């Protein structure tokens, strides 16, 4: 299995090695913790056959007639696109396509490579590996429960799952198909696809329908049956007292709920908005990058160019700014959903935070100062115990069908966190030093 060879350009040397270490720490730990008998493909993912078997066990049947349990029916219906109703034929076609590596230029990468059914429908490494062993700049988000997201990708450049599915196939670092026609050519003539498209769409196979089919399949990946949900449903013993204390903190002192709301109409734990929480500030100089981005986009404003730039170059650290050009969006990334967060590490858009303890440490100290930092991120002064409680709570958000993996990863993360806490800064968390203080007053000066 390939280890992570990520390329960070850090502003501060300390965090360069932190990123490497953090990124590399969990991969082998997770791999070591996982049952050893999973057959694996070229890029570390479980093979398609194995994944499909696992999926069958996890989701023996999908009833498309109504909204899934746990989703408000009115809201669910609003998120099904009008031009892509959820039919069994489309879902079946999408399932085939999702696991099909023929859609990549060298035949080694499918959607399921980076969105592995045995790894939380992500790949559990900091940034994903595509064809030719190339690594991009972004962490693969999970596909679980994405039906209710308002935009896709960390910078929200895709409005629907149907649209999103079409882009990685054409990205030279991910699946590397030169154009849409090549992608269709790769599956043309295959009987199950010819029939599948006819049944699902009633017309010649085309690239847009390919995206729709994959989108339809992805919408069925609903996994919200977590211990936390059962606790909310009225079972007080479903989560530990520690996790319950964490839930109180989530709503209160830790200030999580505002950007990660969870309610019956939106159970995902994301506000679908974009915030600069300072993760990108560990990498690059923003103002300089923003100027560069302006020039590059003026030359070629196509969607594909945007996709390439987002994944391939340093400009990806500008996040949402690459899509909107708004100063308010520099370094902003979409709030990720937090369901199943225990099994979808490492965390943040660049996968730089290996454990949930790192995540809480990052927020506890007030993120990372930069001129575009979201003012809602402020030092939290959480105690050690409170951090443990929050992490305990977050691990209860995983669907019970993944309970074994969740437990293994909890232990792996805890072991890693006990070894080192790279993002911890007690002085900042307790407000003994203040955000922006070092930048303004210098290393010596501290406003008395």
């Amino acid at each position: 299995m390939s280890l992570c060879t990520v390329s960070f350009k850090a502003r501060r040397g300390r965090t360069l090695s932190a990123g490497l270490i953090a990124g590399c720490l969990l991969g082998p730990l997770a791999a070591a913790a996982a049952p050893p008998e999973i057959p694996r493909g070229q890029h570390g993912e479980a093979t398609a056959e194995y994944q499909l078997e696992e999926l069958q066990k996890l989701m023996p049947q999908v009833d498309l007639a109504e909204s899934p349990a746990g989703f408000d029916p009115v809201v669910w219906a609003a998120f099904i696109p009008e031009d892509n109703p959820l039919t069994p034929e489309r879902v079946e076609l999408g399932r085939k396509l999702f696991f099909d590596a023929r859609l990549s230029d060298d035949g080694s990468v499918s959607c399921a490579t980076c969105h592995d059914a045995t790894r939380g429908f992500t790949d559990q490494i900091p940034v994903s590996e595509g064809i030719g062993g190339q690594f991009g700049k972004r962490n693969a988000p999970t596909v679980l429960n994405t039906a209710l997201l308002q935009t896709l990708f960390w910078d929200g450049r895709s409005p629907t799952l149907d649209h999103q599915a079409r882009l990685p196939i054409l990205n030279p670092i991910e699946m590397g198909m030169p154009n849409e026609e090549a992608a269709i050519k790769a599956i043309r003539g295959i009987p199950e696809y010819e029939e599948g498209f006819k049944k699902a769409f009633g017309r010649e196979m085309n690239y847009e329908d390919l995206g729709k089919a994959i989108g339809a399949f992805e919408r069925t990946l609903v996994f919200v049956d977590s211990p936390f949900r059962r606790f909310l449903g009225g079972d007080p013993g479903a989560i530990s007292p520690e996790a319950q204390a964490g839930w109180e903190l989530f709503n209160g002192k830790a200030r999580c709920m505002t950007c990660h709301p969870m309610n019956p109409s939106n159970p995902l734990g994301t506000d679908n908005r974009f915030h600069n929480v300072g993760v990108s500030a560990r990498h690059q100089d923003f103002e300089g990058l923003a100027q560069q981005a302006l020039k590059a986009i003026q030359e070629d404003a196509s969607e594909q160019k945007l996709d390439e730039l987002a994944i391939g170059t340093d400009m990806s650290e500008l996040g949402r700014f690459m899509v909107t050009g708004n100063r308010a969006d520099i370094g902003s990334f979409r709030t990720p959903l937090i369901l199943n967060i225990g099994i979808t590490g490492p965390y943040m858009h660049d996968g730089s935070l290996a454990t949930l303890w790192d995540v809480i440490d990052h927020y506890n100290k007030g993120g990372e100062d930069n001129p575009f930092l979201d003012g809602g991120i402020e030092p939290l002064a959480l105690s050690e115990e409170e951090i443990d409680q929050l992490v305990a709570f977050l691990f209860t958000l995983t669907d019970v069908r993944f309970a074994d993996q969740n437990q293994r990863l909890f232990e792996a993360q805890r072991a890693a966190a006990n070894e080192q806490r790279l993002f911890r800064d007690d002085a900042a968390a307790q407000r003994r030093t203040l955000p922006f203080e070092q930048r303004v007053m210098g290393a010596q000066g501290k406003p008395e």
Partner: protein
Amino acid sequence: MATYKSVETRYLEDRRAFFRGLRNLDRRSFLKVSAAAMGAAAGLAAPHSFTPVSVARGAESPPGAAPQPAFRFAYISDSHLYERDVNDRFVRGLLRAVDDVNNLDPQPDFVFYGGDLAQLGQAKELELGAQILKNLKAPLRIMVGEHDWYLDMGQKWRELFGPPTYSFDHKGVHFVVLNSVVERDFWTARGMSPMERMRTVAGLDNGLQSPFTVGAAQRKWLQDDLARLPDDARIIVFSHSPLYKLYKPWNFWTDDADEVQAILKRFQRVVVIHGHTHQLLTNRIGNIHFHGVLSTAWPWPYAPEGMPEITIQMSRPDPFNPHDGCGDGEIHVHPDGLVDKVYSLWNRNPVTVSRAYMLSAGKESVPPLPNRPSY
């Protein structure tokens, strides 16, 4: 028989006249919301081609249409500092503003501080503010606010920053700095201690205090200071209170505004930059253009009445983000002395209230409208 009209009446008539004009406004001439903002807001539109936006500044006047600015200065205001052990949040706000201004490239000619550096006028608060402001790369000019003054009636302020009333010239523009928060003595009769007096003044809605004034002595000083200037001189007045009458219950008000405006009346155009109001605020009364500035500490709501019609409000801030509705800014001074006022709002796009907007009575270069207005 000559009918005397007060400045107040005259300006109300002025307002009525030019807003009658606004009603005949061609709606299409309002600036369209940028494609980028639309896409970002809807989230469902396919990604558009990118609309280039200047990174550090807001909308500029259309190229070739207006003269280029002659120089610019930056603005930080209303930090309301407590000692850091008492409240770290306001200190963080001022530090962020200083960081913003230090990151401007090129650097502004100078930085102006708009008053209310301290929250309760205490020596430690003022010293803390002075210490932080020392880290500004550009030269600092400073003005007093009521929160700085009413604990010791300006004693510590003078020690740290010199006289509260003064003028200076810069690149042909005459700058006047007033102490426009002079209050009639309300404290002696009540036997208030200095801290009680300060706390009374510190409460925006505390009706025990008196309205702000410039006062006869300063008006005389102003008259004399401006006496030598020709009618087409370029003048910028810095004042903490707005120098007009917006909303008395919150002391968004200068009681002798008429008299002050009368002194300024003879000039072709005058710009007043004021603090105190912690929001996007714009007004025009005859020849005088009024621009409020942002606070680094917290935003005020808009007054329920008396709002100048030419003001385009900032969208209601979100209390989750203590920096929302706050920030710092820049003022771009044009060769004729009029200004583009840039509001550099934190976590929002900058908003520019330009010279063109003011001169066209709100028809050109209109800033984007708020989606969450005050109510």
